[in-house]
């Protein structure tokens, strides 16, 4: 694991295209391992650089996220402990965590992601779901918009989308006024 961690903060994807590649992400300790990926709601922590930061660690009530005393270490996700509650989402200053559930419905997966743009979507809206590169992959249906003041203006959006894009989808396209 230590080796991976060392390599991981030098994400080529981030440095060249702005976003880590899926391949890089699967090698980071915050990305759920294969066994938990499709097994139910689970957090995806797309934190690939060793920056001194650890709020996600304390945000998890189940101790599923570990960083340790050296706060520049990458967060390690114990996906077995993760219930996909989403409490870690608004704690991440980098908006780098989302929760996805492959088992949501027969044909549709769900995602909860942080969103800080206006206008906000409303429940029932059909929006465009995007991948890390901002490319639209499919439509999504807004299931929930959580604007709890606890999250300090970071809204949490839950959407359902076509399961075939489970791995690709990370967020939704910004709405225009």
């Amino acid at each position, binding site marked *: 694991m230590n080796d991976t961690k060392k390599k991981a903060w030098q994400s080529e994807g981030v440095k060249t295209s702005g976003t880590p590649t899926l391949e890089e992400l699967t090698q980071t300790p915050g990305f759920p391992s294969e066994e938990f990926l499709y097994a139910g709601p689970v957090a995806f922590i797309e934190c690939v650089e060793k920056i001194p930061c650890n709020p996600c660690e304390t945000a998890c009530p189940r101790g599923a996220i570990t960083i340790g005393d050296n706060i520049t270490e990458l967060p390690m996700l114990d996906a077995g402990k993760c219930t996909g509650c989403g409490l870690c989402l608004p704690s991440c200053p980098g908006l780098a965590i989302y929760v996805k559930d492959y088992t949501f419905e027969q044909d549709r997966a769900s995602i909860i992601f942080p969103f*800080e*743009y*206006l206008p906000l979507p409303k429940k029932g809206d059909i929006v465009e779901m995007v991948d890390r590169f901002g490319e639209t992959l499919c439509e999504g249906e807004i299931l929930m918009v959580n604007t709890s003041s606890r999250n300090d*203006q970071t*809204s949490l959006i839950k959407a359902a989308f076509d399961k075939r894009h489970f791995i690709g989808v990370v967020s939704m396209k910004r709405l225009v006024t």
Partner: protein
Amino acid sequence: MSRIAEHPILGPLKPSGREVSILVDGEEVIAYEGEMIAAALMASGRRVFRYTEKRREPRGLYCAIGRCTDCVMIVNGIPNVRTCVTPVEPGMIIETQRGIGRWGGGDHGIH
């Protein structure tokens, strides 16, 4: 160039003061008392604040914190006023500055 009425993080716009009227190159502009002149002008769609002395080129806001002095205009008859750090007062007369500007208004009639 418009005011951000609603902001996802900062919430609804809370004006710095009451609405007042200022005169910009003879046109009435509604601004908020206490906001920076440059902000009021940008909000009204104005980007050119002055024309330079040598090349007569347009200039506008550049640093927005009073350091670069590129946004200077003639304010109440006095040239070279840094509009990005000078608050709006009711009835202010603001003119596009050409070159080093000229003094006008009030009792100092240098032209």
